[in-house]
């Protein structure tokens, strides 16, 4: 009794109000965002961020979302541009500031819908906190939400939509709240569509898949889920209305979405895009995932270490889900008929541990358990299909990298729920395990942050640049008008320039092509030299090239003309 009392007091000591837990998680997110900002001091560039910079610039300058063929338009949605324009007008935030600093800081908001959703799924605040913490240490999620693209909003909106959906199911008996939640859901789903209609469509497909999975399980276990029929009906209505909203958006509200869809792809591509949420511009900037792993990091062990959080979550949540699936497929015992034979027969500690560890399988299931299970399965199926498409090379996009973040958003509560409820933390071994867990998550957080910021000591894909490189390119824009400048082995400088300065690319064309014979001027900087060493790729300059510009950090070298036609 005394031990239990001490434990109870200890637990009470650690139990925090919901607001405090959320606030603490916000602090963690803020720390992650702040590190992401400070690591390069704002001197970084990235391809998709540049795409949205261009779209935001265009919207700000023209005051329109799709002015004409000369305007940079993001065809899959206008939400991001609208937010950028709003922040620029309200807060005086410039596009570079929003993309380089705001992009990281704004990701903090996803903590709130995540925690709320997880609380609905798991049914407890600690579980929600644990799941949210697990989510925040996933590098595959951190990378897209820390950069200046729609994903910090769309991932959060997916969480919000799921929260509103599940919450509305739980509020069926309170009509006014139910109505408000349903309306909020449709507003949220439209917001999601407006940010990226393809990601929204893939989410809607997931809802459909979840509906199917839920129905299957319910059909086989009607008695175990007496409250499912309304939930299934609710999912059906949600699915239908969402499809209608998507249709209206693509074909009426935002015509660039239709153009991209109809012009660019075959039916197979369209199907895959809807399924995976890959848009037009993302399509062309992605590379094969396995090539990226092999060449993108200093070594494979480093890559696996940095992405350990993903692997552990994938394997752990997968095992839990499978176990649960098997359990639900087996014949069910009636409610309340919880087996007590183990207790009655005085089993050993191990058996007790196993019995208790699996007792949740035999407890009366909540509707939200089934929903969590179904949505996890749906997102997991999306990942599997993405992997299959990537391996087959059917699309040129990096699909699994796009599908995995959404998967992690449902995998986190599966793992978090199990960790919060089933681990026998009270046992001696459990305390050690508990310590290992929280220390492990802490360390995984650091590893994930290093991965999501492409730490140059560990990654071969560098994002940062030197001020001297920009100065050299500005000089080239004035002096090498209408010519091409080789600016490095990748799009690092082109995207950095585009985000920060928007230098008219028509003045000087930045290229990373190593075989473009028309390129006669080359940017050679400290960073590019180091990249050359890291990538074992020689600099494409000739020994007798002329140094036409040098500011100490960067040079521009010009190939000697060999004919009257070479400048």
């Amino acid at each position: 009794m005394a031990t239990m009392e001490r434990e109870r007091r200890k637990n009470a000591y650690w139990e925090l109000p919901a607001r405090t837990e959320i606030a603490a998680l916000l602090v963690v997110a803020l720390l992650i965002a702040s590190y992401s900002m400070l690591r390069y001091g704002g001197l970084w560039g990235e391809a998709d961020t540049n795409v949205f910079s261009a779209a935001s610039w265009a919207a700000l300058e023209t005051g329109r979302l799709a002015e004409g063929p000369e305007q940079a338009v993001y065809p899959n949605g206008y939400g991001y541009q609208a937010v950028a324009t709003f922040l620029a007008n309200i807060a005086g935030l410039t596009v570079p500031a929003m993309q380089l600093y705001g992009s990281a800081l704004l990701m903090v908001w996803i903590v709130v819908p995540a925690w709320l959703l997880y609380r609905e799924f798991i049914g407890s605040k600690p579980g929600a906190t644990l799941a949210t913490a697990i989510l925040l240490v996933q590098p595959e999620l951190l990378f897209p939400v820390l950069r200046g693209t729609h994903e910090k909003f769309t991932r959060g909106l997916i969480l919000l939509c799921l929260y509103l959906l599940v919450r509305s199911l739980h509020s069926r008996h309170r009509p006014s709240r139910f109505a408000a939640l349903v309306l909020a859901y449709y507003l949220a789903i439209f917001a999601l569509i407006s940010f990226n209609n393809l990601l929204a469509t893939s989410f809607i497909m997931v809802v459909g898949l979840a509906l199917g999975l839920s129905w299957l399980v319910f059909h086989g276990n009607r008695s175990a889920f007496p409250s499912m029929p309304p939930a299934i009906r609710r999912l059906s209505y949600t699915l239908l209305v969402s499809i209608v909203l998507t249709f209206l958006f693509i074909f009426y509200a935002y015509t660039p979405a239709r153009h991209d869809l109809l012009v660019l792809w075959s039916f197979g591509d369209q199907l895959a895009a809807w399924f995976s949420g890959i848009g037009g511009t993302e399509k062309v900037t992605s590379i094969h995932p396995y090539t990226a792993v092999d060449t993108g990091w200093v070594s494979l062990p480093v890559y696996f270490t940095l992405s350990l959080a993903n692997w552990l979550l994938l394997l752990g949540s997968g095992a839990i889900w499978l176990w649960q699936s098997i359990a639900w497929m087996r014949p069910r015992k009636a409610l309340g008929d919880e087996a007590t034979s183990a207790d009655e027969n005085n089993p050993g500690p191990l058996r007790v541990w196993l019995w208790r560890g699996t007792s949740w399988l035999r407890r009366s299931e909540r509707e939200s358990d089934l929903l969590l299970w179904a949505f996890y399965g749906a997102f997991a199926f999306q990942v599997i299909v993405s992997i299959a498409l990537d391996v087959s090379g059917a699309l040129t996009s990096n699909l699994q990298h796009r599908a995995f973040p959404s998967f992690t958003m449902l995998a986190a509560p599966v793992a978090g729920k199990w960790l919060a409820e089933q681990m026998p933390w009270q046992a001696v071994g459990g305390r050690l395990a508990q310590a290992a867990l929280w220390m492990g998550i802490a360390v995984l957080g650091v590893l994930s942050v290093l991965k999501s910021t492409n730490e140059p000591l560990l990654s071969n894909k560098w994002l940062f640049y030197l001020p001297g490189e920009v100065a050299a390119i500005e000089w080239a824009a004035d002096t090498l008008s209408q010519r091409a400048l080789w600016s490095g082995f990748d799009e690092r400088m082109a995207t950095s320039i585009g985000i920060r300065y928007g230098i008219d690319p028509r003045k000087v064309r930045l290229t990373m092509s190593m075989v473009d014979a028309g390129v006669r001027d080359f940017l050679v900087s400290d960073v590019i030299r180091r990249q050359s060493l890291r990538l074992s790729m020689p600099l494409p300059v000739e020994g007798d090239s002329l140094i036409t510009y040098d500011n100490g950090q960067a040079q521009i070298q010009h190939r000697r003309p060999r004919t009257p036609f070479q400048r």
Partner: protein
Amino acid sequence: MKIATLRSLGFIIAVIAALSPLVSWLGLPSAAMAQGPGMRVLGVSQQDLTGDGRPDLTVIDCSFYTDHDRVLVYDGASDMQASDDWSVATDFLNDTWVFDAGADGRAKLIIQFSTTTDGVQADIYDDEDGDGQVSYVVRAGRAMVTESSHPILRITAAPNWTRPDGSLNYNFRMVQYGPLLTQESSSLSPFLKRGSKPVFERLFVDADNDGVPEYYLYRLLAETPKSQGLERASILSNEGRARPRPSPAAIFWPLLGRDSDDSHQNYFATAPTIDYDWGLARIRDAGSAGYPVESGFHINSLRYMQPHVRYVPDFENTMAYYDLAGDHDTYPELHIRHRYYEADDLYGEKVWPAVNEVRYSWSQTGQPGLYWDYKLGLVGRRLITSTVAFGDFPVAIVPYAELPRWVTGNTWDFATFVAREGKGYSSSEGIYEWAPIENKDQDIVRADGMASTGADSLSALAYVQGLTPDAPRDKFAFMRDGFRGEYSFKYGIQPYLYFSPIDRKLHLLNAERGVWNIDGNAEVRYASLSGRYIDQWTYTQRIAGPQAITITRQLNAAGTHLLYSGGDEVVIREAGAVPSLFETLPPTNHTEWQVLGAKLGVSGGTFGPGDFKEMMRQFAGPEMTVSHARLRDYRPAAGNGFRFALELQPGFGVSGASLLDLTGVGPGTYVFTYDGSFSLQPLTTPKLSLKLVARPARGTDLLVDSPLLVQIEAANSGSADARGLKLIVTTHQGQATETEISRQTVDVLAGAPARATLSWSPAAAGSAELRARLEGPDGAVVAQVLQQVNVAAGRSDAERTLLTVSTAEGWHLPALLLLLVLPFVTGLIVRAALNSSPWKA
């Protein structure tokens, strides 16, 4: 009839005839002037449709398309006169002319005439809806077109259609509101939509009103995609002041009806007309016909033309023609085509600041018809700064009168020269062969005996765009039958030609090589081994048959000797033939043309193309003949010397002067070198060696992040030249596989080392091996050299420095602190969550 009456009648007729021009000048209702010879008026009748006692309709039974056609002329201003003479009864001021070809009651064409504030207007309606007729209704005696709300063509003139003397007034404007028949199958077709918006405009201008048009200007008005290179503007300029003759096929109105012969004339020979397809009831074409012109030029451009904006025509900036002979025989003797694109032109080669490709063709022999004797193809990079005004359109072209001197007075980057040696072909645009850059369909190349059209111009394009340092010499490897061509990429001079006293032909000064395709089976190849003048001729003839035979002869011209090798003999003549009898620029005017013609007439030779012995014997001097011998590998040597290899077969004989001392020399192959006197040595196989030096491009240390200059020298200490060798340079570093960094073909001549310089950027620090090797034609290695180099690390890739470089100034510590705080806070939160789980109780 009494004589007095006849006289009076004759007097009256004469007065009327004399006064009719005066009537026109006074602006009285313009009588229709034109009645082509093919058109016959069969009868004229009139009708009063309104019952006011005045005729409203004149019906002209005639024949202009079939044996019986009909034209209904409806009065437009109640001024129709009663007359059985259509030219009196009708006018082109306000009447509506309905052409019923075939007299089947269906209008095939309607022209509605009207007056404007400053002149006259004709709205032309053809069959828009494809029902084979032009619909109209007659109300209150007036004809109203219902086929379309807009004419297909609107023509306006000021003040009238004709001048006081009855000739056509060449100041009129044609505006098109849809496609004409000939345009429907062109690339413009999708953009020429019928409607109220004009799609095409043609201006005809006679600014001084002397009845001779100065120019015609055509421009596209319809919107088209910028990315498509379509013909959007043309100007035709009548520099020769040719007076167009009226169309003999005119049907009542002088602008209607085109003679089938017009297209075979020059483009100012006949008046502009509307060519109508009566069968389809559609306008086939409108404007001038004919091509080209004896004295004048035209422009075809892909860019839109706007008034009052300096217009830079691209594509055919000028297609100019000159009557060099001054014979006014309608055929020009000089044609200059200037193809021009500025660097920012969407459709051009993007050469800075502009690219000029000139085709300068002229006829020297004056053969009737459009036959050309010579052509220069020139490439340059020169902006056009001059402007010539065409009314409201200032156009950037070299003025017509200055263009020939502009071509001959400027230097050019590279050049081709083509001469007609056979019967040639008639062409309205000069000689097409060997365009320096363009890929012309007429540029027939012959390879392996098979003729094929089209020469690969991609290499030429890449060269002028600066993408490759390799000149496109392969483009000029073969020539069309009956033509001779030469090229030079080491040019940079004015387009001088010179006359060779050896083969009595005009050649390109500074030519590198050339070929004369005599008849498809025999050819002469030229080479300039010493740089400025052709000094080697090689004749090859292939005789097909059961046993194919190839006959080869060669003539080499050294400064002091002429050397012939052919069949089984070698002939050497000590004769100092000057390389050039005269040098000249191509003719730009009549005088220069005459002078050049006279010089060529006097200097021309009569020997056959491969008759090198006769060429040689034009020059007096001692001659030596060696039978059963063959001369090869001739080349100039240091100073004015030369060298060659002489193969003496068993039983060789010597006759004539003892120019070569072969006393005691047995059969074998020997190298003869001349440097004032001949010296002899046995031919020995090439003894090749390589030297390799690698040094840093900058500074003194070999660093990994700095390129190295690798200099290779290949020497040949044997007496035989080694040609066509492959020089391959590779590197090998650490565990990496051997990497080839350069491969090129080299000739290593005896006593003349070949040098190559290339750069290499080492990818890693450490020891590296550089290897250069020479491979023979069979791939066997004939020489190689190895060098080890040590590459220092250069800039350190130490983590600390990378960390420094990658972190912005002043942010190192805060970032590190955050990285330390993050796990602490995260761990705390997770621990709290684990400890406060409600299931723990």
